[in-house]
Each structure stands twice: as C-alpha cells, then as structure tokens.
C-alpha cells in the first residue's frame, strides 16, 4: 500500500481507510430512494440453519476485517472507520436495498426460509467483492454441514495476515500519469414511464436456462453479456419507436447501455473494494432502425474496443486524476459533495439509457450445486432519470435476471422477456416460495 494514502492496516486498531476512487461519488448522491445498496442472494434447496449460518458469518467476518467499517465525514473527504460490531443477521421482511444509516456497518445479512441475502453499500465494495464475501459464508456454512471442498477452494485460510492488496484502492495502483482525459459524451434516451409513489423501488426476478441462453449466444457468435446488452438495446429501440410523435421528437435518439466491467479480470488485482469501470455500447437511431443482428454486431465491436486495456487506462486516468488534483482535494467536503452530485447527473446518468450488470457464471465449487438452487443479484435502485436497471448472475444451469424498476410500467420487462422467448429461450418467473 502506498504511504501517501494515509491508511492504517486492519491489524492496528482502530483502523481507517480513505474511500476508493469509485466510491467517492456515492456518499454525495445517496438518498432514501437512491441508496447505492445492492443485494446478492443465494437460494438454497433446504431451509437455512440459523446456528450454522451464525457461525459461518462470524468465521467470514474474521477473514474480512476491512469490511467491518462505517462511513464517516472528514473535512475534505468521507472515510471508512472501523466499527467493532458483528454484521447484523436479520429476518428479510423489509424493502430491498434499504439505505445504511449513520453509525451502521455497510453490510447486512438477511435471511428468509431457504434464502440468504447479503446487502452491501457501493461505498464499501462492488458486486465482485461482495460476492467473494458471500461465497466464503456459503462455503463455511456448507463445510459445517459436512461438505468438503478440494484444496484451495476456501480461498482465504484463517489465521494468516490479510494482504494489504485486498483493501487497497486498486485504481491508484493501476493509474498512469499523463494520459489525456476522456471526451464528454452526448445525452442519451431515457425511459418515458411515470414514476411509482414512494417507496418507489420494486424488483422482479426471472430464471432462464443457461444452456438455452448459451446456445442462443453461440449461434450469434457472442458472449451472453453481449447478447443480453443487445436485447436491452433492442427493447429500448422498440420503446422509442412506440412513443407518440411529439415525445419521440423531444427524446434523444441515442440509446446507450452502461455495462460495468470487472477490472480484476483485466488487471491482476486482489482488491476486495470497488474495482470496476463501465463500457457504454450505443446505437444511434438518427442513422435508422437496427435489426437485432445489427445491434449484436455493433455491440460486439464496441465492447471489444472499449474493454481494451489502454482505453480502460484512459478511463481510470480520467477518474483518478480528478481525485489527485490538489485544487480538488482542497475543496471542503460539503462543496465537493454538491459538485459531485451535479456532475453525477450531468456527466453520469444523462449519458446512458440503462444499466445491465452481469456477474457472469459465478465461481463456486461443483459440490455446492447439490445444496444451492440459484443466485440473484439486485443492482442498486436506479435513480429518477434512469428508472430501470438489470442484474444478471448465473449458477449451474440457471441464469437469473433481476429487474429493478421505480416506474409504474412493466413494459420494458415484458418486451425484454417476450423477445427472449421468441429466440427460444424459456423464461420462468421466480416462484414466491424461493423469492429472496
């Protein structure tokens, strides 16, 4: 860990960290509705055994000491400070992805029948970091039930000193100086649906067959992520086409989808905090209508281009250079939060029409297939501009799609799923009994 970050290590208590580069924006934009809290659930085949789960969570906590922190306000920046408490395990009865209050840990575990969910704040980590945590809980849980895993499957052995790389700000490690900044993109189309009354967020989950999905993607010669992004853009195009004359004229005609990329797959980082960036494939309806195959083709090439390591470097440089700038650093927090909030809406959300987060087929040992049925990822509730987002996660032969929606309309989900069925992919809603 670099000395200038001023962090202490989890061994020296009480410890504290500055927020990582991606997390810096979140405290400024968090509200009761836009909570920046995501949820990962694992649905087991048997009811959860509470005693075993309690022990598994305690064991896991010990291995991830840097997750036992709360968000505090400094004069120039927010920071994370150790909070010597256990991660709360509560009944899953309240709305999903609730905001974390002041003085709370930034993770919580919710249990219902046969489903264990982990809710985490983006201030702390991203989906991959949280998944590593949930994975460890699950493996400890199953181990206590008598399951044995091959050597090295339980990734973190207890007792050893936690590597500093796990809690570092990996953006800083891979930041390269003197790279030119990114150019601002134009505004994108946004869904026209009216908003729900508060609390706005609702969520629906469907289960697809992984083999059918793979087959469909293979036929087009692309990955599942690219295939689903193309379906997303295709659905947006349909919704745009169905708009009334006047509103169609008023709306932007660029459809753009934000796709988070796990940077751990590009850079060899072990960090358990945020380490992802976005690519934004787009179609421009001013150039005419796109067929599904055309969308697939353009998305494929854009994703290839944008995931290039050098371009990713450029993105990191843009984000990190702002934070490294001495003038920016010297602005008091309340002013900084104001500027960040404005920038988030003007430079961030206005540039894309939707978000699709694919955690991919998760890395769990084959032995777990017997005990776990499927996993669900729910991205943080979308804001008023974005209105809708989608999370994807695969386990065994089940690919689970979860739509987070704050509008009164189900049109997007219906069109999206209808399109998948026309492509011979069977869609089945998650049953009430095993809903997270």
């Amino acid at each position, binding site marked *: 860990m670099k000395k200038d970050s001023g962090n202490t290590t989890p061994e020296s208590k009480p410890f504290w960290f500055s927020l990582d580069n991606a997390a810096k924006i979140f405290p400024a934009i968090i509200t009761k509705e836009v909570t920046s809290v995501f949820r990962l659930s694992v649905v087991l085949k048997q009811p959860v055994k*509470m005693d075993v789960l309690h022990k598994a969570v305690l064991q896991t906590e010990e291995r991830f000491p840097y997750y036992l922190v709360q968000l505090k306000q400094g004069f120039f920046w927010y920071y994370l400070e150790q909070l010597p408490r256990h991660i709360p395990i509560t009944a899953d009865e309240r709305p999903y992805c609730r905001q974390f209050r002041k003085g709370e840990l930034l993770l919580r575990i919710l249990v*219902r029948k046969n489903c264990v969910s982990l809710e985490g704040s983006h201030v702390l980590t991203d989906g991959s970091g949280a998944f590593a945590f949930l994975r460890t809980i699950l493996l400890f849980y199953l181990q206590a039930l008598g399951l044995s895993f091959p050597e090295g499957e339980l990734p973190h052995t207890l007792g050893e000193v936690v590597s500093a790389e796990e809690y570092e700000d990996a953006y800083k490690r891979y930041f390269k100086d003197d790279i030119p900044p990114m150019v601002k993109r134009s505004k994108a189309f946004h869904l026209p649906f009216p908003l729900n009354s508060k609390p706005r967020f609702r969520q629906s989950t469907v289960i697809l067959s992984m083999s059918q999905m793979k087959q469909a993607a293979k036929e087009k010669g692309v990955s599942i992520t690219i295939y689903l992004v193309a379906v997303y853009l295709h659905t947006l195009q349909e919704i745009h086409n169905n708009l009334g004359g006047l509103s169609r004229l008023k709306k932007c005609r660029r459809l753009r989808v934000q796709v988070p990329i796990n940077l751990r797959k590009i850079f060899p980082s072990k960090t358990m905090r945020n380490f992802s960036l976005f690519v934004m494939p787009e179609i421009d309806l001013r150039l005419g209508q796109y067929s599904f195959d055309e969308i697939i083709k353009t998305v494929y090439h854009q994703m290839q281009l944008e995931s290039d390591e050098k371009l990713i470097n450029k993105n990191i440089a843009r984000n990190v250079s702002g934070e490294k700038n001495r003038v920016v650093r010297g602005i008091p927090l309340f002013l900084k939060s104001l500027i960040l909030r404005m920038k988030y809406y003007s430079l961030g959300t206005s540039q894309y029409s939707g978000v699709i987060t694919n955690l991919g087929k998760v890395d769990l040992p084959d032995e777990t297939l017997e005990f776990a049925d499927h996993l669900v990822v729910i991205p943080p509730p979308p804001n008023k501009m974005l209105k809708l987002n989608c999370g994807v996660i695969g386990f065994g032969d089940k690919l689970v799609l979860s739509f987070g929606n704050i509008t009164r309309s189900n049109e997007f989900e219906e069109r999206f799923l209808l399109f998948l069925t026309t492509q011979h992919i069977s869609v089945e809603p998650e049953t009430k009994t095993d809903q997270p």
Partner: protein
Amino acid sequence: MTTCPNCGVELNENANFCSLCGEPLLHHQSGNAEWIQSRKVVQEKKLRSEYQRLTRFQKRMIFWEISGLILLSGSLITFLIDLIGNESITWSKYPVTVSLALLINITLLTFWHKKSSRWLSLSFLTSSLLIILLDIYGGGTGWGMHLGIPLLLAAYITLFGLILMVRRARQKGLNIVAYSLITVGLLSVCTDGIISLYVVHRLHFNWSPIVLIATVMIAGLLLYMHYRMKKVTDLKRFFHI
C-alpha cells in the same frame, strides 16, 4: 431441528425463540396447523398496522383539521352570542381575532413545517397584525406599534436562531438546553431595552444583564460538559486530503 413458523428457517431442537425473527416456538403446538395459521394472522396484522401507521404529516393534518374546526366553530358561536345579546359586535371581536391568528399560525406550521424561515416570517406578520388590531380595539394608544411589534420581532428572531442551532446540532443533548438558556438571556436583554425605550424613551438596561450573564455562564458549563464527552476525533483522519 425445528422450523420457525414465521420466517421458515431451521433452528436448534431446544430453542424457545427464533434467533432470526424472535418468534416464540411452542414445540408441543408446532404441529398444530391451526396455531401456525393464527400466528401468521397475528404477524400479518402486526405488519399491516405498521404499514398503516400514520406519517408525521398526516398527524399534523389531523391536528390542523381538529383545531380548525374548534377555532372556527368557537369563533362563530361567540360572534353570534355577542350579536344576538348586544345587537352589535362588542367583546366577541377579541376571541374571533385571536382565534383567526391562531388558526393561521397552525396552518403555516402544518404545511410549511420544514421551511422554518417561511412560516416564521408569515407567522410574524399575522401576529403583528393581531397586536395592531388589539391596540385599535383598545382605543389605539399606539402600544402595538411601539412596544408590541418590537417585542414580537425580538422573540421571533431569537426563536429562529434557536431553531437553526437545534437543527444544526448533530448530537442533541445538553447543548440544546444551553442554546435555549442563551436564547432566554438574549430575549431578556431585548425585552429590557425595548421596554426602557417605550417607557423612558432611552436605551437603558436594568435587570437583563444579570440574566444574560447567569444564563451564559450556565450554558457555557453545559456546553463544556456536552462536548468534553464527545470522542476526540483523530485530526489526521478528519483532515485527510
């Protein structure tokens, strides 16, 4: 192993309560479907009543409706009694005016609860109007303009300051008592000054400095106690840049 009838998780055979939701587990009855059903109904009722619990705004609305009804009907009745009994409007103008001013203030507080500068300034205007009207009803000696309104203004300004301080305080405790004491001290100085201006036509502080010194001293002690308790923040952490 036993299963919690409420949240469906598996628990230790000899557990008396669910470690997740706190539901009591009565083993001898756990096989009884009727009992499980009744627990579910109780649970649903609990959830429903929680859901139906009124918001603060709804509570304020109810208070506003009831007080409006009482004040308006009371004013009407006194007005009619006065009109019928004396065949003209005499004493009833006092309760009617006061009721109206009260109603306006309650209305402001109900709808602009959070916008304190807005409701305080409008409330000040209506209360000033009330004082002037009372002055006119009593023969128009001019006390309303020269004594009533300045006192009212001083009260509103100090109150506004207090509200601001209370809202800004992150930890509420003895500091609130301290702020209130300082407000009382300041208000005493203003009252003393305004009365002296009205009575002897020059600014002369008689008793208020003693009140102010006493309140400031006690408030200082309270503030010291309040902030001394607070954990000293690591400066390096707080000012990391």
